[in-house]
């Protein structure tokens, strides 16, 4: 296990990230527990800067996802390397329910589809996205399925009662 090299890489990464994002919090993640070596908590739309730093370091965008918390959304970006000394970085951002975050699709074209998916399931509208349409759900759907408010029927509530 090339732990030494990874430490070096992580140090470099931290440096360049803190150079790009002076005010953000960069913390070491607990790999054994969360599967990420580095965690960046963004307070505002710094994800474009993170994305360009990661692109420079030749990390690929593993996935973007959102989690619907009661009062806000959390957008989670996973970046990882192709190198032997593997490293995964997670960037999190809390946004309010009505906010429109910036799209990273200008840096990573893959994000076009990933962000479309998030829009499709959560209704989060990304700014500067070239093609924000539904992707998996029908084009004429008027619902956002992964919101916690969606799909709680009486039956599922009953089942929850039985189980929990």
């Amino acid at each position, binding site marked *: 296990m090339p732990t030494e090299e990874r430490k070096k890489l992580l140090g470099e990464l931290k440096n360049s990230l803190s150079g790009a994002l002076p005010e953000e919090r960069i913390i070491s993640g607990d790999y*054994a*527990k*969360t*599967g*990420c070596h580095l965690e960046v908590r963004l307070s505002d739309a710094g994800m474009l800067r993170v994305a360009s730093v990661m*692109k420079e370091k*030749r990390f*690929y*965008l*593993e*996935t973007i*996802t959102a*989690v*619907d918390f009661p009062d806000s959304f959390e957008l*989670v970006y*996973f970046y*990882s*390397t*192709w*190198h*032997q000394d*593997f490293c*995964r970085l*997670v960037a999190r951002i809390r946004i309010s329910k009505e906010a429109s975050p910036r799209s990273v*699709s*200008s840096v*990573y*074209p*893959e994000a*076009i*589809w*990933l962000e479309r*998916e998030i829009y499709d*399931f959560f209704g989060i509208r990304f700014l500067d996205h*070239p*093609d924000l349409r*539904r*992707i*998996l*759900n*029908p084009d004429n759907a008027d619902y956002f*399925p*992964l919101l*916690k408010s*969606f*799909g709680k029927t009486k039956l*599922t509530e009953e*089942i*929850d009662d039985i*189980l*929990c």
Partner: protein
Amino acid sequence: MLNIKTIDDTTINERVYQLNLGPQHPSTHGVLHLLMKLDGEVVVEAEPIVGYSHRGHEKMAENRIWEQFLPNTSRIDYLSGLIYNHGYCMAVEKLCGIEVPERAEYIRVITSELNRISSHLLGIMAFVMDIGAFTPFLYGWDDREHVLDLLERVAGSRLTYCYNRFGGVRNDIDREFCDGTRRFIDRLRGRFSDYHNLITENIIFIKRTRGIGIITEDTALDFGVTGPTLRGSGVGYDVRKNEPYSVYPEFDFEIPVRKEGDVMARYQVRMAEMEQSMNIIEQALDGLPQGPIRSKVPLFIDPPAGDCYFAFESARGAVGYYIVSDGTRIPYRIKVRTPSFSNLFVLTRILPGNFIADCIATLGSIDVVVPEIDR
């Protein structure tokens, strides 16, 4: 830098016409829909339209307890269901801190690699069928049948296995399974020369696949391409090696890499990967430890609140489960990062300028499973 345009009617002129390839088409492997604009037979633009088999697995996960999501995992990618199953169990075990007995890990690796072989056999042969040779497809199925028989012997079903459990596996493997697996490996090794003679060295096949649908390293980085598709482009990235999980570090195997990045390279990577999988299985069978196959796990698990990302390598690339738990029996959120989703999107970049026939070959060589994209 960005070369992605969406198709609108304004760019359609007299020369360019639209063709809907799919959702019902013999070579789109399920219900993929490629909206293409063609100039003669040359593709001007291609846009994959997905979602025809969307079943809402991620939403389903939020409405059922952790165990109940197990049967769903093998339905996300039905061709490598065991690997998905394996990965989900490992992700939840990571979140809960459940120890898995070593024998169970070995069994998981053996079955996962068998599943990988079966998936690659089908992927390769379906791709060869897309190029027009029907017979190798059925030879591949003949071999795949043996894998499925083996997996049926241990898991009880042939396609949508629900075999792994939190903390272990359902059934132990027996002597007969081990012997059968060794026999199968010998048999498949003997069949490789036939495959190479019939397919790899066939001049028509070479002509159809060399230099077609090239994915460069930079394109792969842009689109997050993983799996054999990426390894065909000269990057030796494999989660089993780079971010080892389960008992993979104990085995000696290589990651086949090809520099060319074309259709042929991806085909060759898959062929070589099957051989490596056989190596892993043989080593695992040799070193199979005795012991329990399942650790003590509560009937229904209650993971602690928190989140965890777990990546593993399916037959198509790097899969990731992002799991958020709020400390109850029901998952708060399960996100599945499926490799085909990213691997398919790269088509918008590499298809323009190719003939329809090459598009079909490229699509086949990426080996997408549509339900995996749609989830």
